[in-house]
């Protein structure tokens, strides 16, 4: 990866909610086409990391760098336009809007009508179920179907980096594996994946590299294989005594 420049970087990022210090001196980098994961316990700052990357939370110090440019004071729309997209925690579909409208909102900033049409077709072939339910209100879909729409909505932005906040949360165990296969498939199309997961085993078996966050600080930063073998991590996150 070192021959390429990262798409997205954190340089010594600190984030606060009011007076509460959440992210502490966090450094990370996402390179084109790779799959990386961020692990960490509850309330360790994983979602905050994603929101800071996307510009929904402004860091108190440090730099968020996109394609070599410091984008701290650029709005979320600027980053979405440049290919950064998120599947948020709990998916956050627009429940009262139709499935099609949710997909259209994914492409909100795009001006290439033909490309949008093509991506819609691509999503229909990826998820035939979604195509059958275009006019249904998103809130009435099953959990698995909602996940498909959430992925589809993100892909409609034609992203280079897909940020995923606990994509397997709330899915039936049988769907978790399908969902990871889907992520793998998206990754193989050349989209970089930055995944936040509680399911550390599964995430690390797919990822190239990973970070472990503990109360807002990066405590481990290594290749996925090394992390899988790390006794500390095995003890705290992989459920081994």
């Amino acid at each position, binding site marked *: 990866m070192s021959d390429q420049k990262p798409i997205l970087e954190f340089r010594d990022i600190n984030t606060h909610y009011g007076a509460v210090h959440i992210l502490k001196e966090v450094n990370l980098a996402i390179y084109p086409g790779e799959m990386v994961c961020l692990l960490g316990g509850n309330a360790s700052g994983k979602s905050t990391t994603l929101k800071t990357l996307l510009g929904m939370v402004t860091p108190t110090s440090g730099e968020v760098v996109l394609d070599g440019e410091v984008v701290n004071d650029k709005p979320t729309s600027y980053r979405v336009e440049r290919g950064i997209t998120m599947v948020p925690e709990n998916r956050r579909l627009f429940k009262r*809007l139709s499935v099609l409208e949710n997909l259209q909102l994914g492409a*909100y900033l795009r001006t290439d009508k033909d490309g949008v049409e093509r991506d819609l077709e691509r999503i229909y072939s990826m998820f035939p179920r979604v195509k059958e339910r275009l006019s249904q209100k998103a809130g009435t879909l099953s959990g698995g179907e909602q996940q498909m729409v959430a992925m589809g909505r993100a892909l409609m932005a034609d992203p280079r980096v897909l940020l995923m906040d606990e994509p397997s949360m709330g899915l039936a165990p049988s769907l978790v594996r399908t969902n990871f296969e889907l992520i793998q498939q998206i990754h193989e199309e050349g989209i970089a994946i930055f995944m936040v997961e509680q399911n550390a085993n599964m995430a690390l078996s797919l990822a190239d590299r990973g970070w472990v966050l503990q109360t807002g600080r990066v405590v481990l930063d290594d290749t996925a294989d090394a992390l899988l073998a790390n006794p500390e991590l095995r003890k705290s996150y992989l459920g081994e005594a």
Partner: protein
Amino acid sequence: MNDFLQLCFAGMALGARYALVALGFVVIHRATGVINFAQGSIVALGAYFAFNAHQTWGLPFLLAAIIAVAGCAVVGIIVERLLLRKMSGQPVFSVIMITIGLLFVIDQIITMIWGQDAQNLGDPWGIDTVEAGEIVLAVVDLWAIGLAFLVVGAFFLFFRYSSTGLAMRAVAIDEEAAMARGISVRRVVATAWAIAGSVAAVAGITLASGPAALRPSVGLIALAAFPAMILGGLDSPLGAVLGGFIIGITQTLTAGYQPAHASWLGQDFQSVTPYAVMILILLIRPHGLFGTKEVERL
């Protein structure tokens, strides 16, 4: 029977004006969840802008109306920019109190500039009437009804088919999720306030032109438009129009029949009917006639 039809028509004409006021409430509520109590004074401001452009500057009525519409759009944007944006994330109660305060401030500004006396906004509609069978339809009333339908039609197309309209609905449902899609929440909210201002000006002009006189109190009609909006269900443009008609018709029917048939209800009972109808319908349908209940599945 003819009396009855005549009253119903007058009720529709009144209701159309309520509807135009209510549509302004609806668009802001739909995009931001705020109920803007100052809407009524922006209605009055629109009428006075048109008065100023038409009577003081001597511009043609249509041009004056366009200036009023644009002027109120700007007022909407300024109000949002200076006051409401600062309040984002604050308790809804405080936000609502600010809009109530603003109602009185704008009213005061209006009397400072244009005075208390009744003015003549002008009468582009004339006193022409059309006869339909036995009932007489005033052209000015037909205009009001037509404009209400025109505006609600435009709203429908805007929310349904335009990308900004879709973004506005998304922001109303989940601001943060909308932001994550790259939607500029600020721009969407500013657009909603601009639209509400424009509709307020149209409402003000139809309320204060023709046979009616222009007084600062024209904004008070918003108080009767309020039940129309609640009835329609707060976030439904079509509901606002139907709510307006229901309130308007009950009001004119009450004014027409109550003094002779139920005089024990007291004088001026028709000014209470909008609220009586509102209470009744809310008891039966708490979300209004067309309000959306959350569609959720966990």
